[in-house]
């Protein structure tokens, strides 16, 4: 009994309670305002669609996940070095940064059809779409992270004759880490969106493909079920990065345990 109580009152359960409350509100809204099922499906129908189509949804979500991870990986690979250059060189910053902001304002959905023309119908156009959406937040956060390293700390390191590499590894990088991680978290959820954009435009598989078919058939429950699975991909990837953050920067303020919860 007390175990059950513990599980129910566990802080980790809180989002689940919120989901339950939202589901009830959703159901009530449909009943009270008599919203017809061709506009918004009832939650029960969506759960049924989730159950019936589960194997297919999982299979397709793997495809989307790989594209997302590919795009996210590229974002890290290009974003962090780019941010380092921008943070450490005013010249590079003045050349590159405005262009970067400019490129970010280009709607990806408008150029996505071209990726299929250039790279064919495989995974590459999806990875590139995910990369283009995921890239920017990493650059912005990382630049901010490195720029907000306390200059006194750098001076201290220099006065103690630390080499540039030592200063970077011991002071700059650890201090920039929290900002980098916040960029990574935003990036990974956007990369999911990017992958689906890629799938909308041209793909034989993936959650975006399921969404297109469901929409064409007025199958709103399946469409919502696919959206749920898609959001789950985002959540799982977000949590994975969150865990990594805990391991890598356990000292940071955001990672300290909640005092009230332990009391």
């Amino acid at each position: 009994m007390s175990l059950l109580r513990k599980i129910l009152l566990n802080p980790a359960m809180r989002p689940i309670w919120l989901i339950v409350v939202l589901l009830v509100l959703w159901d009530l809204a449909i009943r009270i305002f008599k919203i017809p099922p061709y506009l918004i499906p009832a939650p029960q129908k969506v759960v049924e669609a989730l159950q019936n189509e589960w194997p297919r949804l999982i299979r397709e979500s793997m495809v989307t996940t790989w594209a997302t991870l590919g795009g996210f990986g590229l974002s890290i690979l290009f974003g962090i070095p780019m941010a380092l250059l921008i943070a450490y060189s005013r010249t590079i910053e003045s050349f590159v940064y405005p262009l970067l902001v400019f490129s970010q304002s280009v709607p990806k959905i408008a150029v996505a059809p071209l990726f299929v023309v250039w790279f064919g119908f495989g995974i590459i156009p999806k990875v590139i779409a995910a990369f283009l959406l995921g890239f920017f937040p990493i650059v912005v956060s990382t630049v901010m992270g490195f720029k907000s390293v306390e200059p006194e700390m750098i001076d201290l390191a220099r006065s103690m004759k630390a080499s540039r590499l030592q200063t970077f590894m011991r002071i700059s990088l650890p201090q920039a880490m929290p900002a980098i991680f916040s960029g990574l978290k935003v990036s990974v959820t956007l990369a999911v969106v990017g992958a689906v954009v890629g799938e909308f435009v041209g793909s034989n598989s993936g959650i975006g493909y399921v969404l297109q078919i469901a929409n064409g058939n007025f199958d709103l429950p399946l469409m919502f079920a696919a959206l749920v699975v898609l959001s789950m991909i985002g959540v799982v990837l977000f949590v994975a990065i969150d865990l990594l953050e805990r391991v890598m920067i356990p000292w940071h303020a955001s990672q300290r345990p909640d005092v009230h919860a332990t009391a």
Partner: protein
Amino acid sequence: MRRLMKLVPAAAVALAFASGPAHAQGKEKVTLLLNWYLYSEHAPFFLCKERGVFDKEGLDVEIQEGRGSVPTIQAVAAKTVTFGYADVATMIKAAAKGTPVTTVGVALQTSPMSVMGLSEKNIRKPDDIKGKTVAMTPGDSMSQVWPLFLKKTGLKESDFKVVAGDAQTKLNAVINGQADLLLGYLMDQNMRIQDATKKPVFVIPFSEYGVNLVSSGIIAQKDMLKEKPDLVRKFMRASTVCFEEAAKNPEAAVDAMLKANPKAGVRETLIAGLKLTTPLYNTPDTKGQRPFRVSPKNMSESFDMLVEYGGVEKASAGKAEDYYTNAFLPQ
């Protein structure tokens, strides 16, 4: 959420006021939402506007471009627009799932659905498709009728390769050689490919192989038919006149469309497209009749195909008669 709920009535009031002045002028305001961005098929409606045929019926018609039949049908169902010009087969699928819409006139009674590719690829008959790559859009009406075309022509899914993408990707794939063929309409995509590549396109219409599904038509909300039957009658009377006139004089119809929207396309291409479209206004069993008046046989055959191949559930679907009416058409 609560703030959003407050906004809904506010928006409704705003809309009511916005539509007020039109009534004051004594003309009824009508919005027609098309199935797609402008192309040749839509020209007759602009002829109606330009020649004042809608005005004569006391209608102030606004023509809006659409983004596919599905959102058009949903907008009609939600009464966001008065009429929709959309794929009737898609409407049947929506109505079978409880969407309160029906068809008040079938414009294209012979299906424009085709599989097409550049003539230089030498694909002239279904058998030539073997070993080729076909581009299609997942979930659209053509990709759903495709299995029936395969069955009628003795092809198998394993005979060819499929690439899937949205409307633009499909075109790009054929233009750039990533696919040999695409599923499209015989007055639309072939024109676009010809314009882009300056090469002739060979079209294999589904209807030549016994696969004829009713195509574009005028869609209305079911309650609206009861509330404003006269409005529907007026609109269909005007549209009938203009479709007849467009068949006789496609140049005038295209010019009217280009006058309203110069970006609608290249004049010659649009005229050629409309000339390919007007023969689809009838089937052999409605030959000589006025436009929009679909035959029960045509409708029930289309319906049976949808039940068998289009994902319409037999148990809940009812009969073909539940999905259309010719009652609002002029004699």
